[in-house]
């Protein structure tokens, strides 16, 4: 199986972007990550991750949705590409395969 070069933080970010659907931009992603993981990534760390993911081809972006709150500036929205989705699938598959090969602890059934 091919290694997909998806780091742990990157995988999380990618998953969150997927789960947010149309409303995935830096601040909402930040909030969502904070809610799920209890960590509060800095905006710089996030943009750094977006940049890397985009370069790897897992993300696409478009600009829009300016608000007053932002001083009239656009947001950059992110979408998972098919390739990104496949990377998530691969990663999940790899993990679950490996997980299922773990010896049972004997509490179930």
């Amino acid at each position, binding site marked *: 199986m091919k290694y997909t070069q998806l780091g742990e933080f990157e995988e999380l970010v990618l998953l969150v972007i997927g789960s947010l659907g149309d409303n995935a931009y830096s601040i909402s992603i930040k909030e969502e990550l904070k809610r799920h993981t209890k960590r509060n990534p800095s905006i710089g760390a996030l*943009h750094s991750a977006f940049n890397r993911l985009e370069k790897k081809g897992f993300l696409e972006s478009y600009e829009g949705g300016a608000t007053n709150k932002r001083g009239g500036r656009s947001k950059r929205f992110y979408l998972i590409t098919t390739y990104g989705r496949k990377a998530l699938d691969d990663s999940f598959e790899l993990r679950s395969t490996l997980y299922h090969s773990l010896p049972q602890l004997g509490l179930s059934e």
Partner: protein
Amino acid sequence: MNESKQYRPPKWPDKLLGWFCHPKHLDIFRGDVYELYQDRRENGSKIRADIGFFFDILGLCRPFAMKSHKIENSNNIPMFKNYFKITYRNLLRQKVYSFLNLSGLAIGLACSILIFLYVNDELSYDRFHEKSDRIYRMVEHFEDEGNGEHSASQPFPTGPTLQSEYPTEVVQAVRLFNFQSPTLALSNKEADKAFNESRVFFADSTFLDVFDFNLISGNQETALDNPNSILITASMARKYFPDEDPMGKFLELQGRQNLEVVGVLEDSPKNAHFQFDFIISFSSLKPWFGGGYPGTWYWNPCWTYVVLGDNVSKEQVESHFPEFVDKFFPGFIKEDVTLELQPLTDIHLHSKLDYEIEANNNVESIYIFSAIAFFVLLIAAINFINLSTARATKRAREVGVRKSLGSSKPQLIRQYVFESVFMTFLSMIFSLIIVAIFLPAFNGLTEKAVSFILLLEPARLLTLIGITLIVGLLSGFYPAFVLSSFNTVSVLKGAHQKTSGLNFRKILVTIQFAISICLIIGTIVAINQLQFLMNKDVGFDQENVVMVPVIRSPMGQHYENFKNAALQSPRISSITAVEEIVGAKHQVGNYQFEGMEQSKPYARFNMRHDFAKTFDIPIVAGRAYDINVQTDDSLALVVNETFVKSMNWGSAEQAIGKRFYFRSELRGKVVGVVKDYNFVSKHRPIAPLVLTLNTRRGAFNLFIKYVAVKINSQDVEASILDIENAWKSVMPSMPFDYFFLDDRLNDSYKVERKLSNVTIIFSVLTILVACLGLFGLATFSVEQRTKEIGVRKVLGISTSQILVLLSKEFLFLILIAFVVAIPVSYLLTKEWLNGFSYRIGIEMWPFMVAGLLTFMVAFLTVAFHSLKASSINPVETLKYE
């Protein structure tokens, strides 16, 4: 839309973001941090929000988000090829500019290379000895109330005694001695070759250990150990023994002593403070002084050099000197004597003592030369900058095209800096060619033998390349900056370029001309001072005096016969004999006059009868020495006016009859006072002088060195022949030698003459280079204003008005330069002149001449362009409008 209140985040972190962030991300990032800030303000305090805002921005400071300074294509080699090609094309297309630019810089560089070679050679004096940092010359100051001497030489016993007293500190000592004689006669009897030689020294056997002079043949260790041995240089070997091996052959000294040649030395290096042709073992001297060395501590004829031990300081040894003087020097001079150690390497540039072996150079002239070199180079570099920026407008279109094709500013700067470095290297090559051509002439001028090969040594070559690079970079950066900052669109539209940097250029031109004017003023003052030194009445007649060296010759026995024989000739009017060259040198003697407790040192001059007559020195009071008064030899003295003044004897008449001690008795009398004359060069003021008659035959061994013959004929050659015949009639076997007094005295001002020669040449060159620059700038300025002139011509301007229009600007700059140059050059020349006892006053006219000269040259340069501009048909310049 959310209509909640808008909070303003702090400004400076926001600016920080704008400063580092790549524009592609800036809007999004700024939006993000603003949004976060609003959220924080809604839920918390301002201060927390501000801090959060700052840290958010700091967190965004990541490599991917930064502005990029990288050029995407890192393969620069084709680019450099292109630069090269463009440089080459520009060089050819703008031939006049290229020529001005290259030649100006090449001349500037050549000048500084020449001066660099000169200074380098001057600084290299006496450094080739392995022990040069430990070798010191002993100096004896023998002075009382300003009278006396500062002697470069020592009594015979000083060197050996010092060494035996302090053997751990003074490791070696060597003495040089030459009978204080200007020449000594040497002959190879077998080959019938006899000459008077001036560079003969007796030297201790340690000579070759202390100094590093190379022997071509002979034994380095034992060469000077035995008496009656002589070392000769290679060229002397050729002179005396043209076809044979000189080793083991004999040379005869003064017709009295046979010396065996035990070694051949390489010719003495030019960069040593003394030059020699013959070195005779010191022990050969014993027969001349009755079997031993003179033991007196008064007569000080030996140049004495000592080598100190490792880690022994000069001060440490000098601290013993007072005790040393007290122990050994005779009582009557003890109080007046102080000894000093003079570093060997300081002698050539810093030593101005009495009885130097050769006249030394002056460190001031080194400074002046270096300053000139620097300024010439500066002017050339300024030219280069001015011409390049002026030329820039010509290339504005190229810049526009390059910019629109995507050249970034740094790339353009690199291109133009590359170009200027390339140009400087080109001119460096030209300048090396110029140096190669002119070095022999320069060597002739400065009396040096610097070879061109010296420049090709790796270290010097690297220095040259370094200088070129620095000049290229410095002078290339500003034009590059101007060029690359042109606005693309306006340049391509062909709009008139605002000549930014015109003010900077004006300042540079002003500096150039200020330096040129200073140099001209300096040159005029230097020439004047030299003329003044050489022409000013010295108080005695130096014309038509033939000097014949006679020391250590049998002349003592034959003087009267010689004199009578020579005076037979109608062409010879008077003959005397003197101790030193009149007007160049003197000796010092101790005298005790009435009212003095102890004898004191005074400048002293031994001579024979007819001295005042031969040199035409007026007697102010009393009489000259009289051949009919037998006791004049011992009981009479003639002094000069300054002497009378320094003794407070009142008038010259009152000085007559003042008594002095002769052999501890107050028996002698002052019989005459002569008018003051410059008995040494005009570098020094006239000091008290005692003229002593010395009629003893033995005087010719030491106290009388020359016979001076006054000729009164136009036919100089016949007069010389008469003297020679008289000489041959009394001493047929001695070689006859002579020189003219005025020639020799002019040599006293060699340093000043060299200085003025060099400054004349270099200031002419500086003006030339500065004018090349002005020429280029005027061309540029005229080109800029062709349209204006066209319009003006249509409206009826006359040629002379155009001239005024165009030259006004430059002439104003020169006026400013003149105003700046006057005080600077006034102070500098005043400082220089202060070093002379006899000096010219600073007058107005050199300043006026320098100003006018610069003004004229600049005006002509600009006028040339103005005439050219006025001859253009306005139709040509205006029809494209």
